């Protein structure tokens, strides 16, 4: 898993940038072994995966280079149009999914792949039955590849059934820890960023680099599930190791309004937290709104998660204290490259884990712009 540093502009920024780079590297080095040992046993960590399958390490390295590099058009003759479908929680304020799908489509075109894309973005609050219906609609067109995500056990059952059918080939986005239960029949690739690593980077940066270190925190979870558990659990664990107290925790509907309400409740309680940890962009935006309404902007910190456009905008306006920024488009590009490799019968690694960077308001707009250019190199500003 790579971490990238913020860009520099001017001597001061360069010094800060190099410090940031050093910090990110240090954080990465310190956390890397710790992370691998702290994942629930349902999942296989990246390290466990490479230990069990040593060939995966080199395969991942070469695949990472392939993702970073410009597109090389496919040379294998394509006998038919490939059909790709995606069912994902794309209808949310976070542009993570939209940008990924955009980057994915553009990369496919640059790879000269003849494809047909069936897009099914769903609201983040969609029930399991509705997701099932959307998947059924996608399957009716008999796609070759199906892009899904995995957050709850209900969806896990759905995916298991699809894996058992062996068609279409499943690509899981936003998860980088293979499920042990699928050991014999894994999806084509797990693509995403490491939630635990990102959360721990946030916690460490907050504690090491922020002058006003949080002392008690409130946590905004999404619905109960994989993402909440990984992002929320990892952050709370990391903060508690530094003696930071968990003041209150709220489960939400993974959207801004529910986060707004939860934040208001936190702020209005007698025991108000001095930092609110949001497990996603939408939750962070809801929290910002509530904090602003209470006139506590700059007093109570909020984090972003993912570093999408909305978060970067909020960072520049100093509404967010910090965010962990994914190199967003890399994951979309990785899906396209995985399909390319699969079509040309080249090996596909089991996991693609994207890069991160910590972004704070202390970064200059040029630095943020440079990071954005890197993160959104296909989906654009």
């Amino acid at each position, binding site marked *: 898993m790579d971490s990238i540093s913020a860009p520099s502009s001017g001597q001061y920024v360069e010094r800060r940038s190099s410090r940031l780079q050093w910090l990110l590297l240090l954080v990465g080095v310190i956390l890397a072994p710790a992370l691998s*040992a*702290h*994942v*629930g*046993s*349902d999942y296989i960590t990246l390290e466990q995966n490479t230990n069990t399958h040593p060939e995966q390490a080199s395969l991942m390295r070469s695949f990472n280079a392939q993702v970073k590099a410009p597109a090389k058009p496919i040379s294998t003759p394509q006998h038919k149009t490939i059909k790709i479908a995606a069912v994902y929680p794309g209808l949310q304020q976070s542009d993570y999914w939209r940008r990924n799908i955009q980057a994915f489509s553009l990369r496919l075109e640059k790879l000269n792949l003849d494809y047909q894309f069936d897009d099914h973005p769903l609201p983040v609050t969609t029930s399991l039955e509705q997701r099932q219906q959307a998947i059924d609609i996608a399957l009716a067109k008999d796609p070759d590849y199906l892009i899904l995500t995995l957050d709850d056990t209900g969806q896990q059952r759905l995916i298991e059934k699809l894996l058992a059918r062996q068609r279409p080939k499943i690509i899981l986005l936003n998860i980088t820890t293979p499920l042990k239960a699928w050991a014999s029949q894994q999806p084509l690739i797990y693509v995403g960023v490491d939630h*635990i690593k990102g959360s721990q980077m946030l916690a460490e940066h907050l504690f090491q680099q922020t002058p006003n270190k949080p002392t*008690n925190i409130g946590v905004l979870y999404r619905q109960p599930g994989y993402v909440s*558990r*990984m992002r*929320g*659990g*990892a952050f*709370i*664990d990391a903060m508690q190791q530094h003696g930071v*107290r*968990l*003041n*209150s*925790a*709220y*489960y*939400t*509907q993974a959207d801004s309004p*529910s986060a707004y*309400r*939860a934040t208001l*409740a936190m702020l209005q*309680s007698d025991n108000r937290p001095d930092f609110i940890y949001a497990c996603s962009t939408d939750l962070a935006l809801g929290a910002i709104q509530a904090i602003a309404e209470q006139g506590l902007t700059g007093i109570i910190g909020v984090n972003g998660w993912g570093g999408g456009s909305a978060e970067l905008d909020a960072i520049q306006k100093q509404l967010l204290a910090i965010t962990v920024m994914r190199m967003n488009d890399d994951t979309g590009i990785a899906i396209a490259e995985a399909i390319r490799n699969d079509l040309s019968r080249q090996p596909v690694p089991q996991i693609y884990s994207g890069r991160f960077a910590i972004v704070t308001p202390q970064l200059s707009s040029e630095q943020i712009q440079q990071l954005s250019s890197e993160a959104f190199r296909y989906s654009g500003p």
Partner: protein
Amino acid sequence: MTAAQRSTTRSISLYTLLGSAILIAFSIVIAANLWGQYRLTNQLINKEITNSVRQNHALIQSVLNGQLKLLGSQLQMLSQQEELTSLDPDSQLHQIEVPLKALIGRQKQANSNDFIMLGSPDGQLCRNSYQIFITEALNCNALIAQFDSNLYNWHLAKLEATDSPILTTLTRTPIVAQNGKVLAYLYGGIVLTGNFSVINQVISTAAKQTSAVGIAYRDQIIATSAPKDSTEFDALQQAISTPDRLMHTLKENLYSMSHRVQLENSQNYDVRLISVIRTDGRTELQQGMIQQTSGILILAIFLATLIISLTLKLSLTPLGRLRNLAKQRHSGSFKAFNPGSITEFKQLSQEVANILTDLKNTEQQLRDNSYLLAQSHREQKALNSRNRKLLHQLFNLQEQERKHLAQELHDQLGQPLAVINTDAYLIKVDSTASDKIISFSESIQRNVNEMSDVVYRRISSLRPMPLNDLGLLEAVRHMPALDNLKQLNIGLEIDLPPTLPTLTEQQQIHLFRIIQESLTNIIKHSQADQAWLRIQLHQTDFQSPATLVLEIRDNGIGCSSSALEQSGGFGINGMIERVNSMKGSWSLTQNRAAGTCIRVRLLLTDSDNETISQVPSAPL
């Protein structure tokens, strides 16, 4: 029927013996294979035992997982009860506990948790709401403090008790208010220490030969089906110290093995399941296979010894006979050789018989040839002797002929020439003779003198006159060849003794002819400009006979034997035969740098029959 015929009918091929050996080897291989199979079976049994252990392990893992899942879902169901979720978001723990206890009371039958605790979101406060099977009062703070990670559902926690720590599983689920706020966490779990429910579930469905199972935490057995003072318990203890290895307890043929048990969604790996397997059938199999293997091996070794002895006897006996026969090969008793029953030896004996017959025939042929050769040699020797005699006769005849011819020349041609010379002289000194006549007479005189010289030289060469009158030394000094040397500017140093002992006429002639022949060779072939002729006498005292040494040497280029032979007369061969006839010794050395040297040694005895050394006969 002869012995040979009988042996033919009883013929055994070595291949038969080899086949027998292979058969025995095959038996040994079978025995080894049986042993291998025993080991393989042993391994299979071990594998089977290991599989049984793994099966038990999977079983307890499954039982545990099932239990924990049930506990978790019951806890979750409890947390989602309306009585709890509809509470005021600002409710305190004691306010939450009231409806919680009521719910537990109502659902007691459906609750599998051994304890249920209520904890604040920050983990600071807690209340012990329900406990069963635990005699001690729960210290909820101590237990919750062991819930060290939010990433995992299940944890292992130690509950301090009076006797010894009690191990429990621990999980939690949030009680979420309707506004999403986590009101509190509901903690629950089961006690693993002494949990016979789990143990009995495993035992009831475990592999048939499972004798006992146990759950261990680190190095301590916390629950087991085995009584404490039993062998099974000892086997359980033994397996704790060597995890993941199959241990064998000889006493009651028990096998034990421990494996890690992982709680679902936990990072704790300190719990182990130990299975004890009893394998009575294995001992029977072991004994049976050892008996069978031993029996086959003993039989194979016995048969092998027997056949090897027979083979050695059959092989070595004819070899011994053959060796004895070889010692007595001159006795001609080979036909009595009994090659024994081995076909290959019979074939070998036949081959040896053929070889011996051939050898005998060859020996006879060689003997005949040797006799013929000896006869031929004798004939050759006689022929040589006759030839030598003939040569000597030839020498004598030649000398007589020369002598006669010289006499004839002297008498028939010398006298008239002397008369013509005298007449010419008288004509020349006649006062009346004209100058022309005087000139003619002087011419006649010169021609006559030249003729006389020629005739004289011919006579001398045919028969050296001084040899008869003055002896060898004077004959050598007047040898006509000396003039020829002088004419050719070849210097000659002559070193002769003042006198010689009395030599026979034959000796004188032979020595003279050898000198003459040698000088002729120098003139014709040597290209020398200097020659030496020496005759020496060696005599140690007057009593002993003298030795005459003749040496003719030059500084020329030497000459080939063919050239010497072609020099006229009888050449080298003639010289050798002359020396031989005098019973003297002879040597010839020559090279391009030092020229040629012929040396003749002649022992001068009273009796000519005595010789100094034997001279090799030259081919004639």
